[in-house]
């Protein structure tokens, strides 16, 4: 098995087409997952009576079941319950629900990490719980967890590769299609891997820059 350059040279337009679709889905899903996760985390923290409990269950369930199974359910099972969503919508929904649960946990951790003096002070200043949340707690919580959130968005990027199983022609799908024609799997999948790493690099660098700007970390140097 060798890396056959001619395959890349001849079929790179297809790979780029797939790459664009991957970027599109990743971008949309990151935004929706972040917003959704934020909503969940806030609702959970406010301890809205019945809803918070339901959300707890939702988060646990979606974190401990595989995205693939969730995706299959939305795409293949929901139609028999009368809910027929397009492939794109199914994909975004699955990723949003899945990653949203993880993001909710991260943000909730951030909220709890805010010094307990803050909400007390807010209450002392006669703010409603909602005001306290919006003006005092959330800004601090989010600052704390931005590095984790950026890390999570790289997971969203990797998740888009699963969309190939519901017939969305993103990067991995295109790589597979090219392989079916030329039977050169090492070439196409290494090429796809390289493109994914490139995207990851962009995300990761952006994350590092953000983290450096926000926090003054301690460099620990251990000598063994």
């Amino acid at each position, binding site marked *: 098995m060798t890396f056959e350059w001619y395959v890349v040279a001849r079929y790179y337009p297809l790979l780029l087409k797939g790459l664009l679709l991957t970027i599109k889905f990743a971008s949309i899903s990151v935004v929706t997952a972040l917003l959704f996760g934020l909503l969940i985390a806030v609702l959970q923290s406010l301890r809205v009576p019945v809803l918070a409990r339901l959300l707890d269950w939702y988060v646990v369930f979606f974190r401990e079941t595989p995205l693939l199974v969730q995706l299959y359910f939305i795409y*293949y099972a929901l*139609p*028999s319950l009368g809910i*027929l969503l397009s*492939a794109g919508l199914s994909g975004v929904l699955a990723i949003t629900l899945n990653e949203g649960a993880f993001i909710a946990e991260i943000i909730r951790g951030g909220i709890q990490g805010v010094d307990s003096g803050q909400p007390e002070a807010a209450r002392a200043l006669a703010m409603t719980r909602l005001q306290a949340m919006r003006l005092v707690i959330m800004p601090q919580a989010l600052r704390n967890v931005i590095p984790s959130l950026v890390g999570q968005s790289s997971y969203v990027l990797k998740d888009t590769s699963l969309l190939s*199983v519901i*017939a969305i*022609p993103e990067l991995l*799908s295109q790589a*597979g*299609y090219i*392989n*079916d*024609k030329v*039977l050169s*799997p090492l070439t196409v999948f290494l090429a796809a891997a390289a493109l994914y790493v490139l995207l990851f690099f962009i995300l990761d660098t952006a994350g590092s820059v953000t983290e450096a700007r926000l926090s003054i970390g301690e460099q620990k140097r251990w000598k063994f």
Partner: protein
Amino acid sequence: MRANLILKTLVLAAGLTAAGTGLVYAATPTTLDKIVQNGTIVVGTDASIRPLSFVDPTTGDVEGFVPDLVRLYAQKLGVKAKVMDIRWAGLFPALDTGKIDLVAANVTTTIPRTAKMDFIDPWLFTGASFLVKKDSSIQTQADLNSGSVTFGETKGSVYVDIVQKDFPKAKVLQFDTLADYTQALLTGRIDAVVDDSLVINLSALKGHESQLRVLPGTFMPQTYSFAVRIGDNSLSHSLDVFFRMIKLDGEYAAIYKKWMGSDWQPQTVGY
């Protein structure tokens, strides 16, 4: 004295070289040699289509038209057959790397594929069929070439390119398995499926006759062939002989009738 010695040395060297070459030649066994020596032929099939090749849920064994042919060949050769269920896309890499000796599946014989494998004479003749929903507005092949039609095909199927060529206005979506595209057709995600007639009628349509129908007519004659590694001449010749013999003496017809349910009609080309 010296000349004698030199002459003897030369003769000895020549003799050793000849013997060595002969030994090397004889020592490089062909795949068929290895199969006979080991007593087993390792065959790969994609056991996902009744009645061609499928996994019997009660025994877990691979059964069907293809396994029967393979086991008959092994029996005649005097070896055992090890039939492995390998997902379609993994069949050709498995053949390349030597994990299997023979790909026994519904491999559509196409010229581009001959660059990567050696085909045996076809074991089945078929054509293509179009599957649509019962209440679909599509009635003829011409209806399919429209921007509002979306086809569903399995990844790696020859039909992906065929659709793009013959129905340029339609869209094609690629699915992992037949089960996936059937489900997609039933739920209205796609409008049509084109696949080998046998696959359509015996696998995709089965169980869904009340919701799906096949377009009338025959299209695009196809053949299925088994495949061996490029250059495995002794094995491919052996299989060619096998197929010709069983088609002459009625064994093929018996297996055909068992799995297809109808009598086998030989093609006029003489196969």
